[in-house]
C-alpha cells in the first residue's frame, strides 16, 4: 500500500500538462464558432461551412459545432455532408432535439427513402445517451457500488446482504459498458454518401454497377481496400464504392 502513492503522484504529474493543453486550445475554436454563427445569420453559408470546418480541424469537437456545420451544409445544398454532420452531432448528443429534428428533415430530402434505424432491443434504453456518457455512467455506477460495498464492510454488514448490491451494480455497469461499446462500433461503421454513388461488385472502376445510392444515403462500412470501401445498405446488399464518396461518421 505504501508503494502505490509514489506511482499515483507520478501519473498525475505526467497527465496534468495534457489537461491544460486541451483547455488552452478551446479559445481559438470558440472564436471561429462565433464567426461562423455570424456568417450563417447573414446568409453567407459558404463562409459558415469554412469556419466551422476550420474549428473542427483544430482537434476539438462539440455537438453544436457539428450541428451548425450541418445547417450550413444543408443551406449550401450539400445534403450528404449535412446528414453526416448531423449524425456526428447526434453521436455526441443523441438526445439533442434540434439535432434530431434537422437530421429528420435532411433525411426526408434524400431522393430514395431511407429505412428506419434498427437498434437491438437491449440497446434501445441507451439510445438517448452518447457512448462517452455511457462510459462515465459505467464508471460512476462502478464507483458507487464499490463505495457502498466498502461502507457496508466497514459497517459490519453480513456478506449475504452486500453481494446482491454488488451484483446489481456490476450488471448495471456491464450493461453501460456494452452499450458504450455498441454505440462506438455502430458509429465507427456508419457512413453517408456525399454524392450520388454507384455501388459496384468489385473494388474497381470498370466493375459492374450493382446498384446506385442517392446523396445522403446512410450505409454501413464493412472494410477498406486501396481507396475503396465495401459498404452495405439496409437491405444487406453490399458492394464497393470509392472512399472519397462516403463520409465516415466515426471520423471527422
Amino acid at each position, binding site marked *: 500500500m505504501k508503494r*502505490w502513492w509514489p506511482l499515483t503522484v507520478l501519473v498525475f504529474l505526467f497527465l496534468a500538462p495534457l489537461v491544460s493543453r486541451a483547455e488552452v486550445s478551446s479559445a481559438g475554436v470558440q472564436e471561429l464558432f462565433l464567426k461562423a454563427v455570424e456568417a450563417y445569420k447573414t446568409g453567407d453559408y459558404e463562409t459558415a461551412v469554412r469556419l466551422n470546418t476550420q474549428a473542427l480541424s483544430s482537434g476539438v469537437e462539440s455537438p453544436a459545432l457539428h450541428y451548425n456545420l450541418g445547417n450550413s451544409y444543408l443551406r449550401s445544398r450539400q445534403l450528404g455532408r449535412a446528414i453526416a454532420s448531423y449524425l456526428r452531432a447526434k453521436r455526441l448528443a443523441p438526445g439533442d432535439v434540434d439535432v434530431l*429534428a434537422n437530421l429528420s428533415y435532411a433525411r426526408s430530402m434524400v431522393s430514395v427513402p431511407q429505412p428506419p434505424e434498427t437498434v437491438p432491443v437491449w440497446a434501445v434504453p441507451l439510445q438517448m445517451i452518447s457512448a462517452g456518457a455511457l462510459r462515465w455512467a459505467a464508471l460512476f455506477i462502478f464507483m458507487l457500488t464499490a463505495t457502498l460495498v466498502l461502507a457496508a464492510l466497514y459497517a459490519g454488514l453480513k456478506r449475504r446482504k452486500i453481494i446482491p448490491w454488488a451484483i446489481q451494480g456490476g450488471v448495471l455497469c456491464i450493461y453501460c459498458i456494452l452499450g458504450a461499446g455498441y454505440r462506438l462500433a455502430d458509429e465507427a461503421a456508419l457512413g453517408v454518401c456525399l454524392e450520388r454513388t454507384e455501388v459496384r461488385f468489385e473494388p474497381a472502376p470498370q466493375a459492374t454497377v450493382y446498384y446506385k445510392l442517392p446523396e445522403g444515403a446512410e450505409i454501413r462500412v464493412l472494410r477498406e481496400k486501396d481507396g475503396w470501401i465495401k459498404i452495405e445498405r439496409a437491405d444487406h446488399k453490399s458492394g464497393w464504392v470509392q472512399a472519397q464518396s462516403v463520409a465516415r461518421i466515426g471520423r471527422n
Partner: protein
Amino acid sequence: MVDVVAKHFRKEDRRRQSDAHSPAGQQRFPGWRSGLKAGWLRLALALILLGAAGAFLAPGLARAEDITFEAAVQSNHVTVGTAVELTLTVTGEKDVDPPKIENLDGFETRYAGPTAQVSVINGTYSSSKAFHYILFPLKAGKFTIPSFELTVNGQVYNTQPIVVEVTAGAVPGNSGGAQQEKVEDISNRIKLLFLVPRYECFVNETLPVVIKLYYQEVPLQDITMPEVKNDGIVVGDYAQPRQYEELVDGVKFRVVEFQTSIAPSRTGQLGVGPVTMTANMLYKMEGAKSPFGRSVFDDDFFSGFFNSYQKRPLTITSSTFELNVKPLPEEGRPADFSGAVGQFDLQAEVGPAEVKAGDPVTLKAAIFGSGSLKNIRMPQVPQEGFKVYDPQIKEEGGRKSLEQVLIPTGPEVAAVPALTFNYFDPVRGQYATVTRGPFPVKVSPLAPGEEFHAVGYANARALPQREDLGRDIVFIKDRIGGLRDVRGSLARELPFYTVLVLFLNIWGIFLGIYLYRRRLQTDEPFARRQRAPRAARAAWAAAEKSAAAGQTRAFYDALEQGLRAFLADELSLPLGDAFGARAREELLREGVPEDVIARLQALESVIELARFASAASTAEEMSRHLEEARAVSRAVEEIL
C-alpha cells in the same frame, strides 16, 4: 434311443436294396400316396402349359395363315353433298398403322379413326382392325377408289378398287379438295364479299365497309365473325349482323351481313383484306346404319337424332383490294389540330346560367359525326377565372361527350369561354373548325351570412381546415458547448482514467485497511506478530527509563518482559515458553540464523543472572544489554 436310430437306418438300407432290384429306368417314389400326388401334379402342370401355349400360339398361327386386307364403302351410289364412309379392314393382324389416303379423285377425305374386333367362333379365334374414312364427294361423276396397299411381316396385301358413282343431288357438294372445285363451288354456292365505298381515301379517314356472306342451299352452322387482315388499317367495331335472303341473278341466296369500318393508319398503296370466316357445313352420311342393324331408327325421321350428319369445318375467304391512302394536306392545318378526320359537329352547353360565387356550373360538350372518335381529343376548357375539376369523358352511340364541373372564382366571371374543335373534312378535302360559345354566366356575390354551412350541423363546430404547415430546419446554436478533444486518445481519455485511477487508489487503501483490521481480529498469530514490535518497543522504553533511574532490577525486569513478550508474540507461544529450548526450536524452524539465536540465548542468560543473582550492573552494561535486546529483536522481526 440308440435302438430307434439303428432301426431307422436298417429300414433305409432295406428300401435302397429294394430300389436297386426294381426294373431299369423306373424311378420309384418314396411311397404310393406321394407317388400318386406327384403324378397328378405333373399332369395338371403339363395341361396348364399346353393350354397356355395354345392360347398364345393359336392366334399367331391364325395370323400367319389368315391375314386379309379389304376395302368397303357403305354405298356405291352417293349424291353430292352426302358423305360416304370407306372402311379398310385388316384381319389377323392388329399391329398396323392406318393407311394414308391422299388426293383421292373426286373426294375429299377425312380419317375418322380405327375400331378393333376380337371373336372366338366355334373355337376359332379371329381378330380384325378397321380404319374408317369419311369421303366427301366433290363433284358428280363415276370415280374409282384405288387399291390400297398394306405390308405385314414383309408380305404385301392389296384391296380391290371400288367404283363409286356420284350424282348431283338436291344438296350441292362443297369444295375443299382440289383448288379448282373450291373456286367453282364458292363462286356458285358460297360467296364472301368485302365491300368498300371507294378505293381512295385520306389517312385516318374512316371508311364504312360491309362484309356479306352469301350461301345457297348449303347447310352452314357455327358461323364466326369475320376477321379482316389488319396490317396498316384499324378495324372498327362490328354492328349486330343481319340475316336476310337476296336474289342474285334469279337465285335466292341466304345472306349474313356484317357492318364495320376501317381506317388506314399509313399512307400509300395499302393492300386490304382478305376477310376470312369459318363455319361448319353439315354432310349427311350416305347409308348410315344403326349399330344394331336395320331398325326403325334408320328411318329419316330418326336419323337427325342419331348423328347421321357429319360437320365439316369450312374456311371462307374473300378477295383483297388495293386502297390508295393519301396524306393529309399541310395547307391550312390548324395549330391545335389533333388528327380528327371525318365530318364532325360539336354541341356544347353550360348550365345554370346564373350562379352565386362558389356554386358550380356544368359544361356539357359532345362531338359526333362520320369519322373515328377513338383518337379525338376533346376541346380544352380555358381555366382562367374558374376552378376546374377533372372532366368525365365517355364515348357511346357514335358520340364522344364531355361533362366538366367549373366553379367561377368570383363575380367578375362573365362567361365560360368558347370551345373550338378542328378536324379534316375528307369530302371537302380541307380543314374545318367548329366553335361553340362563349356561354354567358352571371355570377353574383354571396350575401353576408350565405357562407357555406352543412345542413344539420348549424350548431356544430367549424370543420377543420386543412393546413399546409411550413417545414424547415431548426436554427443554429449560439453556444459552442463543451468541447471534446479529438486529437489523441490519451488526452481525450485523461479525465476518465484519472478519476478511475484515483478512485481505485483510494478504494484500495480503504479496502486494505479493512482487510488488515479484519485479519487482526480473526488471525491471532498474525495479530500477535503485529503486536510484538510495539510491545517490545514499549518494554525497551521502560527499560531505558529504569536504566536512567539506576534501577538495575527494574531495568532487567523490563528487558525480560519485553523480550519474552516479543518472542511469545512472534512465535505464537505462551509467555512461559518464550525463553528456552522450545523457543529456540521454533526460531530455528522459522529460519532464524543460529548466531542470532546464540545472541538471544546469551542475552537471556545475562538477564536471568542479573535478576536472580542480583549482580550489580553499570549503566554502560545496561545500555549495551538494551541495545543488544533491540538488535536481536530487529533481527528476529526481519526474518519472521
